[in-house]
């Protein structure tokens, strides 16, 4: 069963320097509070996995937490570039990072295969794309029944996955609702998992087939109200599109970014 831990405790226990970390949430339910705690604890050399790095990884990369990024779409949604990611890739600031890029379909399948305990995912993908030329993890196999050539990618098996969700009950069972992304797969694919939630409730009060992640597959449940801001939590608060737009100016400039980090992450302390 999941332990109920504070945010600092869950991060210090499960996010180890050098670990492979997946923090998921597809535009919705992005675990920003957990990302900020990782920055505050000055975790280093992480391999960060996420379909859409979004602002959360832009911040963590700018803060120097990452050694490598595995992703499939690295922009500021609806706004433009992730300038901290670009600065690291193009200019090596604060240090160079390695990138490994996929398509969304391949990453979604790789998370799914990880949750399914398989070593690989198979998809009809990457035909005619240059991505297999720059990503040596993309291979092709032949279907033994039809002879069709299909793409194969290794499944994703993070050391730790971190997601945010609406609520947990007292046994640590978690309800994820709305745009559910690959969150359940990320948790099931990982060796350890941390779920931050808006609140703890007596009963999840959901339909018979709702997306519930049982407490007994989660390592730590952490209450972090507002923990997905500036992204959103369906049923709790909307996305701050303004922050996403404002981020563009902050992230374009190393000094502005560093000042933002000091004021809004380091000075802030535990967000749970």
């Amino acid at each position, binding site marked *: 069963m999941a332990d109920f831990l504070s945010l600092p405790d869950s991060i210090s226990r499960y996010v180890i320097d050098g670990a492979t970390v997946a923090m998921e949430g*597809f*535009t*919705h339910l992005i675990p920003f509070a957990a990302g900020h705690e990782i920055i505050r604890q000055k975790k280093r050399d992480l391999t960060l996995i996420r*379909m*859409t790095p979004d602002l959360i990884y832009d911040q963590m990369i700018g803060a120097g937490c990452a050694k490598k990024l595995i*992703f*499939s*779409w*690295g*922009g500021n*949604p*609806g*706004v433009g*570039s*992730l300038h901290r*990611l*670009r600065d690291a*890739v*193009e200019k090596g600031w604060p240090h160079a990072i390695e990138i490994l*890029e*996929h*398509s*969304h*379909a*391949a990453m*979604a*399948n790789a*998370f*799914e295969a990880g949750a399914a305990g398989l070593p690989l995912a198979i*998809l*009809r*993908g*990457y*035909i*005619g*794309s*240059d*991505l297999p030329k*720059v990503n040596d993890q993309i291979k092709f196999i032949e279907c033994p029944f*039809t002879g*069709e050539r299909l793409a194969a990618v290794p499944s994703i098996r993070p050391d730790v996955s971190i997601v945010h969700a609406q609520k947990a009950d007292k046994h640590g069972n978690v309800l994820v609702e*709305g*745009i*559910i*992304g*690959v969150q*359940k*797969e990320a948790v099931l694919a990982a060796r350890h998992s941390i779920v931050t939630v808006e609140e703890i409730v007596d009963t999840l009060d959901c339909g018979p087939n709702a*997306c519930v992640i049982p407490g007994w597959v989660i390592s730590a449940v952490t209450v972090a109200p507002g923990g997905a801001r500036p992204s*959103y939590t*369906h049923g709790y608060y*909307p*996305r*701050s*599109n*303004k922050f*996403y737009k404002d981020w563009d100016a902050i992230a374009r400039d190393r000094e502005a970014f560093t000042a933002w980090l000091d004021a809004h992450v380091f000075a802030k302390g535990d967000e749970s």
Partner: protein
Amino acid sequence: MSERYTAGEMMTVTASRALKNRQSCFVGIGLPSEAANLARLTHAPDVVLIYESGTLETKPNVLPLSIGDGELCETALTTVSVPEMFRYWVQGGRIDIGFLGAAQIDRFANLNTTLIGDYENPKVRLPGGGGAPEMAICTGEIFITLKHSKRTFVEAVDFVTTVGFGRDGKARDDVPNIGAGPTRVITDLCVMQPDPQTHELMVTSLHRGVSRDEVIEATGWAIRFSADLATTAEPDDHELKTLRELKARTAKHHSGS
């Protein structure tokens, strides 16, 4: 160009008209989303809009800023996980039209959203593939909409993120279970379609008031024009009014938050 509408409006309306009622359409953010929702609000009320965030048959009242805005989920028939979206709905062959943009496109409609320059030392690092590479393979056909310029319409894309017809125009030949690929490119100047034999893009329709020279000037390769070159039908008042109201609603909605 008319004073009734802008070149951008001409592009969006033309793109929207390409979608037929009841088709299922996988919608990219930005221009494709604008065109697809305009279609839904005008001639194609039962078009099925699908966003890669898992929202099936969504009817947003305002255009989403991101691919996963709450509006998309709240107005959807149902929302599935992202693995299911790519497995059952895209790869499962349930999408008629994939509606895409790009940073670069070449004469064989290959798309680049990865980077400008060299992969190891990029001049500009772009967001990457996202949902597009498999959309180009698994949907029935692909519509592309983007503004016409020499920076965008290039002789050869720096990186084939998403295949059109390949560097030689033959990438889809004899490949099983692959869609028709790009069947039209809609810009602010014209409509292009692939030559049925060579798959090279050629202009099949010029927007009213646009000259061949303007297209030639804005295209990075020696663009060809169809023998029976048409003039694109102009937006009607209802389309323009609907588009402007949609954009005004959208601007108002996103300004506050």
